[in-house]
């Protein structure tokens, strides 16, 4: 049997997706104890009586985690509640030391938000509802492949603060799910609340997916798909699982509500051994923590102090710097790149020139070296300095790229490099005329053909001049010189 194509299935069936995203908050210490929340570290070194669940230990809420969770919720347009309640989610698992996870249940931190992930053909926004944002703690890690025949437990992650962001089932395709995740990740990055790395486990995604016939308004039976470790993995898993469901429905069967595990290597889903519904988490309010009470004024201040959102920044860059949509999207993809660009543009004064350099040479350099903009050797004021040198005619564009390469390597100031490496533009007409004489003498054939009307050969001659001057001559200036000399000398 050959698998039906996505397009053929999409003609009759619709995909309905809701996502649950767990995101690690960027705090120094854990949610309920003073242990470091840092990723990595030798197993079971960032632990204490609280996160080991020793008898008698009690949780104390990390205030920074509350700030970050509130910031995230406000950025997702949620209503942050003045009173929310921590609850215990009870289940047995070796990497869950207390036998319960401290989470929030029927009174979460925030509810009723939304995220716009793009525009439809009719230019209406594609808006995904955010059902709730709540705080919880992470469990430890079970390591099954370290020692033969036994499972090892690492509790360094135990008690690390998370938020869970639950969406409405508002996505209608795997691409929309991917777009939602990318927008969400960008917002969280802009708010600086999380490191958002699926690889390091600081961002985890579980997907609820169901299929229904087009035109149907009721939701079909959903399955939960877990174990994806990239956004593209989420998209692929959703497609595979949805195709499976449609196959079941088209054969007259019914979809079982269950948890499916994505196997990225095999590009397949398989049912999890734990049956859906067999878990009764016996939630009840956490008696060791009083309700979380946030002053209305404090919430208002947090809203007021919210960092600039990606959409706002895009609009501002388009308006203030006159950049096109493509440029804006590229430059604002990452908040730190956007900060970098903005510093260059402000220091230099020509936002377009700044954009060209940031999108061109800077991004190319980062890509080649795999560096992050925050640790990039060339600081914004130095890049602006280089642009100023070009604008003021001190270096040519060609020489500027050599200077830039030296800046990347050494971190030195551009003027210093230009001077030291002899890359300052040559404006001496005598020197230029001398080089031109040599070039004419060395390229008699090209000169002949140029005179005969093959004007494109001017490029070859300019190139030769550039080589002779090691980029220090201005291309426009010598172009004019060549034209003048070779036509007037006739």
């Amino acid at each position: 049997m050959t698998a039906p194509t996505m397009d053929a299935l999409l003609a009759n069936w619709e995909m309905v997706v809701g996502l649950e995203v767990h995101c690690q908050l960027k705090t120094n210490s854990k949610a309920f104890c003073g242990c470091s929340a840092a990723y990595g570290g030798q197993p079971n070194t960032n632990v204490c009586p609280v996160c080991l669940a020793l008898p008698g230990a009690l949780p104390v809420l990390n205030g920074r985690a509350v700030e970050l969770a509130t910031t995230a919720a406000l950025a997702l347009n949620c209503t942050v509640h003045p009173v929310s309640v921590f609850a215990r989610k009870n289940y047995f698992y070796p990497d869950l030391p207390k036998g319960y996870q401290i989470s929030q249940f029927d009174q979460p931190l925030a509810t009723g938000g939304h995220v716009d992930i793009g525009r439809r053909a009719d230019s209406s926004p594609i808006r995904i509802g955010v059902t709730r944002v709540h705080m919880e703690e992470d469990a430890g890690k079970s390591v099954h492949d370290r020692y033969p025949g036994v499972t090892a437990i690492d509790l360094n992650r135990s008690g690390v603060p998370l938020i869970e962001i639950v969406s409405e089932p508002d996505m209608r395709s795997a691409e929309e799910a991917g777009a939602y995740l990318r927008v969400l990740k960008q917002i969280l990055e802009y708010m600086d609340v999380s490191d958002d790395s699926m690889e390091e486990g600081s961002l985890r995604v579980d997907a609820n997916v169901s299929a229904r016939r087009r035109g149907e308004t009721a939701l079909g039976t959903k399955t939960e798909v877990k174990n994806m470790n990239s956004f593209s993995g989420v998209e692929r898993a959703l497609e595979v699982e949805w195709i499976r469901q449609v196959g079941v429905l088209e054969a007259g069967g019914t979809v079982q509500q269950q948890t499916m595990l994505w196997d990225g290597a095999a590009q397949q889903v398989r049912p999890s051994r734990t049956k859906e519904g067999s878990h009764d988490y016996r939630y009840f309010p956490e008696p060791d923590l009083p309700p979380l009470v946030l002053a209305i004024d404090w919430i208002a201040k947090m809203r007021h102090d919210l960092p600039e959102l990606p959409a706002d920044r895009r609009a501002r860059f388009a308006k203030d710097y006159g950049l096109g949509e493509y440029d804006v999207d590229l430059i604002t993809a990452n908040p730190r790149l956007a900060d970098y660009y903005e510093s260059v543009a402000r220091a230099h004064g020509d936002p377009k020139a700044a954009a060209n350099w940031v999108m061109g040479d800077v991004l190319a350099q980062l890509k080649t070296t795999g560096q992050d903009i925050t640790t990039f050797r060339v600081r914004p004021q130095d890049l602006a300095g280089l642009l100023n040198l070009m604008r003021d005619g001190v270096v040519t564009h060609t020489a500027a790229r050599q200077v830039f390469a030296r800046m990347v390597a050494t971190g030195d100031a551009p003027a210093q490099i230009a001077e030291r490496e002899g890359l300052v533009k040559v404006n001496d007409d005598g020197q230029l005329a001398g080089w031109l004489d040599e070039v004419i003498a060395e390229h008699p054939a090209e000169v002949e053909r140029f005179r005969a009307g093959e004007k494109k050969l001017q490029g070859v001659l300019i190139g030769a001049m550039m080589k002779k001057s090691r980029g220090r001559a201005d291309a426009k200036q010598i172009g004019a010189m060549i034209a003048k000399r070779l036509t007037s000398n006739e």
Partner: protein
Amino acid sequence: MTAGERPRSAADVRKEVRNGARDTQATVEQALQRAFDVKAGMDGLNIFVSLDDALLREHARGAATQLADTEPGSLLGVPVAIKDNIASLHHPTTCGSRMLKGYISPYEATVVARLRAAGAVPFGKTNMDEFAMGSSTENSAYGPTLNPHQTDRTPGGSSGGSAAAVAAGIVPIALGSETGGSVRQPAAFCGVVGVKPTYGRVSRFGLVAFASSLDQVGVFGATVDDAARGLRVIAGHDPLDSTSADIPVPDYTLAGTHSVKGMVIGRPKEYFPESLDPRVRARCDAALAHLAALGAIVKDVSLPHTDLAVPVYYIVAPAEASSNLARFDGVRYGRRLPGDGLRGMYEATRTGGFGPEVTRRILLGTYVLSAGYYDAYYRKAQRVRTLIADDFGSVFGSGVDLLFTPTTPTPAFRLGAISDPYEMYMSDIFTVTANLAGVPAMSQPIGRVDGLPVGGQLIAPHFEEDRMFAAAYALERALGDEAHR
């Protein structure tokens, strides 16, 4: 009879150590001698589940040198027995359970740290009902503690070992814990003073949780003053316990100078039912007469939801316990028994590690929190709990300063006499209300029936321990020897 000789009071011990008449080593030595004389060990009264003589002597020496050049602590040189569910360094913390046999905590409870800072010497770990579930210490994995007054009787529970340690004259002060009367009931049975402070008054950090919304560390004293001194040291805000209250702690010993003249003392009719042992009733009325003679105004009051307290307690407490005891899973510490796979290990460990009463309550608690039953049991119980708290609120709001009741319906019952769990639960009928409402309460000896102590209970509004102590000091003085006759 091994009780009778009262331990040297905390105030006297401190005075002697301070003026150099004796040192901490001598006070610890005396307590060890007394423990030996009364046969406090496993083959006798079975008061201590761990009491390491060599370790205690070493600590006593350390305490003596350490405190030589600092301002003497308020419990300088005073040996204080610690219930086995309060984390302390060096001695095991086993909660009277096979599950934690040999477990030594790597950190100590805030209350123990405060005792040591005040110059006290933690004196062994005392026997208790397993995980504080019980009213007789018969649920201990180490076997029951015997009542020092009559060894065929229970000392009460769950803090029976601590009550007996004070009653047997070994230590003037002991720490216990309450979830539903576990300090006051054994205090009454053993003829000592037992205080359950306001919920939030004392840090729970390091107290092994049974039911977190009810648990509170309590203090036993040979006298009201001993208990007041002990509470003063351990009370106060602790940043490590989010439910501890940041409210200043007065010097409770000053309450001894306060008068009860004009104080309105409520006598709730629900605590004096027809079925109450008439001899217990007589002792209570005599105590009230003393208070009235001192100028207090005794007033009949009603706490109408009292009869719901035991049923509510036996939903809320097991529910929280079922979750709190989930950490004893054999993975990280304590007992682990082999089984088939992970699930088999869990089942073997928990079946083999927990005794029948703990198992019963975990099952009960798991049931009442289960989907489909939560609303009918747990949520409803929490609503009724607020009604019980409101009863206290309206009585105290109507001009009543304190309540006075019997601590227990009967004196200490015989060991083995109660095998029906429900009948055992009813022995806490007069004490669980204060835990559910979070108000402070204490029991003090008010006389004897057939040689067995009878306890009278004072209940105060939230954080008014001071007022409660004022009445307790006054009553203790007025009763004199009558309290122990």
